[in-house]
């Protein structure tokens, strides 16, 4: 494994400890930081999330991280992994506790979860996810694997971005991908072996990207 540097972005509300514990288990290198220069020097970025949309975007903006993320992820094409709220923040906007603008990286909106059949909200617990095993991030994960969800808002976006869904009184977006941007609604850091495998797949993806850049073949 190469000596890659992953920065787990700490904007004061993410469950950075849990994400760090998962990467520790996989013996990866990481830095927990909220500094722009660390983001600039990273090989890959992870944006965890336990929090409300408005408060999160406010914190990120105060730290000047939105601008830096735009630069690193959209311009420099660094591998990016968004988790839970870290996925929702990529949308154009959200209606969680008022109207808030997101990063606008993907064409989508964050809307309140309104499942049919009077299911309870928030959607908390282990749900089986439908995905295509040929996708890089779902490699080696068994079909119909369970992942841990915990959210009351969900992403509604263009269909060609969606790489995984789950069923909770209607179809719910579970994972999206757009070039180097990969994001999930569930918590892979808290989804036992399946989740750890997914994070391992992301680490492998970073390695491949670094190699790519060194050989300048892509």
């Amino acid at each position, binding site marked *: 494994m190469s000596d890659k540097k992953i920065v787990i972005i700490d904007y004061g509300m993410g469950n950075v400890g849990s994400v760090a514990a998962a990467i520790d*288990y996989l013996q990866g290198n990481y830095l927990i930081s909220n500094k722009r220069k660390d983001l600039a020097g990273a090989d890959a970025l992870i944006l965890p999330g336990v929090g409300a949309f408005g408060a999160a975007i406010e914190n990120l903006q105060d730290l000047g991280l939105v601008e830096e993320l735009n630069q690193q992820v959209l311009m420099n094409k660094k591998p990016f992994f968004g988790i839970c709220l870290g996925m929702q923040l990529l949308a154009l906007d959200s209606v969680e506790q008022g109207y808030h603008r997101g990063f606008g990286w993907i064409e989508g909106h964050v809307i309140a979860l309104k499942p049919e059949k009077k299911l309870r909200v928030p959607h908390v617990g282990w749900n089986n996810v439908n995905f295509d095993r040929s996708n890089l991030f779902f490699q080696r994960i068994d079909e119909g694997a369970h992942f841990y969800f915990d959210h009351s808002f969900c992403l509604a976006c263009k269909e060609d971005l969606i790489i995984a869904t789950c069923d909770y009184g209607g179809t719910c977006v579970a994972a999206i991908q757009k070039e180097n941007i990969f994001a999930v609604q569930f918590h892979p850091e808290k989804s036992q072996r399946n989740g750890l495998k997914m994070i391992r797949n992301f680490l492998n993806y970073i390695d491949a990207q670094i190699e790519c850049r060194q050989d300048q073949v892509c």
Partner: protein
Amino acid sequence: MLKVRIIGVLVVKAGTVVQSINFDKYLPVGRPAIAVDYLNRWGIDEITLLDINATQEARSPRFDDIREYSKSCHVPLSVGGGISDIDDIRRLIHFGADKVVLNNVLVKNINLITEGARLFGNQCIVASIDARRISPRKYEAFTNSGKMPTGFAPAELAKKAEERGAGEILLNSIDRDGSKKGYDLELIEQVMNAVNIPVIVCGGVNHPSHFQEAIELGVSAVAAANFFHYTEHSVITVKSYLKSLDDRVRLDSYATYDHSKFDLLGRAGKEEDTVLDKLRFEYIPEEII
């Protein structure tokens, strides 16, 4: 389909996991970090850690301990005990908790629930309600480890917590705690009907069929504390027992859950000698992630 979670509760007193009986007597079990590690390996769906003397000692949660426990916890970790302000919640989440469990603030400072939900989202806030039966069909909610009556019915308090921003209710029965009599289904129904958020039930489990009763009632999660101690692979045994409830429990760790023999207490029964003989020479390598 969403599965019903099976939650392991670790009641921690002075840094030691204890078995609690009626919120009154406590038997020591062992170190929390080890309990977390084992429950995680056995495929538990979630772990709830309650520090029951933080409030009595008027101190904050032990953040460094939480950091240590969360290292081997690859399932969601909810932490309760001694949380009195937003900074406590922020630090717990930073140190590896995924959700916080709030009990005393329900009556003392309910604004913390609203404020916590505003900053961390309501999915992060679990309102814990300890209920005691005061007359047939009537219950009262208590705080301070079951010592302080609140004057509220559990259903009433649950409704209030939901309105103020809680994302889940953790309902514990003081009478059934450590009683081995199974869940108080009457109490569970009252609270479930009052709220629209997920309800986790706890207190009294001594047999896997007790989980089944609550699951059939429609709860979102079933929790137990004492029941998971002192039995190897207790979580796997429970899940094998509940396997007949097709599609209601999560069965996807590397265990097979094929075991079908249970003794009267719902523990794994002894297999035939021929089966055991074969097992002696079987090598099952651990999957590398």
